């Protein structure tokens, strides 16, 4: 398990090192608004794998449903649980 706050913290870090604004990021913020792209998502997954020591499993999980930061957190939690 990994806390949602930790995932949001990682999202902020990934965006901030690219010089993007991170102050207003909330669970309901859309990825489009905060400019969080597929490459950022890929990096986030690697960082989570490193943090948890577990490989994420995306089989059978819907990518299309991800719109907000909250969706990212939910998606990651499912991928961690999905053995």
């Amino acid at each position, binding site marked *: 398990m990994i806390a949602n706050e930790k995932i949001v913290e990682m999202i902020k*870090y990934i965006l*901030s*090192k*690219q*010089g993007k604004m991170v102050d207003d990021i909330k669970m309901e913020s859309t990825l489009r608004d905060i400019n969080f792209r*597929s*490459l950022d*998502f*890929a*990096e986030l*997954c*690697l*960082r989570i794998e490193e943090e948890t020591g577990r490989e*994420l499993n*995306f089989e059978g999980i819907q*990518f299309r449903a991800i719109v907000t930061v909250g969706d990212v957190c939910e998606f990651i939690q499912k991928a961690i649980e999905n053995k």
Partner: protein
Amino acid sequence: MSVYKLQFDNRLFFDNFAITIKDLGLMVSKKIGDLKDLKNHRIAFVSDDNFVLTDSVFYVYKNEIDGAIVRKEQLSDELRDILLNLGFVILLLNNEGEPVDIFYPVVNITPKKGRISVLTSGTTGIPKVIPHSWDTLFTLRKKVDMPGFKWLLTYSPGTYAWFQMITMVMFIPDQCLIISSSNYPEDIWMNGIIHGATAISSTPTFWRYLFLKKNLEDLKKVNLKQITLGGETVDQSILDKLKYIFPSARITHIYAATEIGAVIIVNDGKEGFPIEWLKEYNKSDERPLIKIIDGKLWIKSPFSALNINDWYCTGDLVQIKEDRVVIIGRDSSEFVNVGGMKINVKVIESTLLKHPYILWCRVYSKPAPLVGQIVSADVVLHNEYKYLPKENLEKTILDYLKSQGLFDWALPRVFKFLDSIPLTNNFKTKYE
């Protein structure tokens, strides 16, 4: 036997003794002299003792043996099988030069006088065994009037670069070699101080490793007149740093490969080589010919291995930058594919190395969801920048890479900051 004259008075300095060329080869000769059944075989001499291996190579030369020299740590099961399948007897020697184990070949191949097999350094896998002769190994044959130097030997026994140094001390007057029993750069350097080295040939990674371990004062204790770099891509940052530390030394960088020999030699202190050489080298058969096809370096060389007679694709990618041809590194195996966009890791590495904080780096791909792969970088910082907060550091480095024209997708997404440089046995950058 080579037509070149052995320089009997040239000396080799080991940790606590020196020996002339005249006396080399005798110890191994004495210890294995009774093994008569070896005569009809190719022989690979294996030891973990650098003196024994040096003595063995002179025994090989003086007895015209079809031989190879191998460091024991390099003799994996795979390499042992390769050598046995090439008809080599593998002779394991202890540090007294006595045979302690012998493996006999699985095929019988008639030995050829004067053939020397050279091992590639195996940076990217199992070493290859490349057939040479004393003639093709002695690429300095036009330099017999070079000034006398005491060379610090940094290369691993049996490799192409090692044979360059060995043939130099064998055949060029007034050359000496300082050979260490240790394989750590800092110990090799200490031997250079003790024995008064005046010249060194090494990889850039050897120097970067030393920069971490030795301060400026320690480095200046060796009064170098000649610095030669090879075995890896030589970039401007390493040339500039060496010029700063050793202002009176001549700095040469060499492009060489075991298959084609030492073919491009540059002395002007700039990375790459002048674009005119693509034409000039065509004027004489005695000099290697160079051409570029599809961005890759091709060479036709008089120093090629015995099994290469024509143009040879080095597999190295080059870029033309104004009036220079800059070698950036090996081809497809080192590309990162980020969502269909491909970039050679060497392009990213050479840009990273321009950053003033970065002493050394290696770039590689990591599998990642959605985009297939992302770029990762292991980095070693110069000592003075080691304690900077890593969070700001990543941003600073990324901003710099962007300012140098790297696209967003080609930027390293994951950095690992290492304390020391991982080395191969020949002091090259180690890739996993």
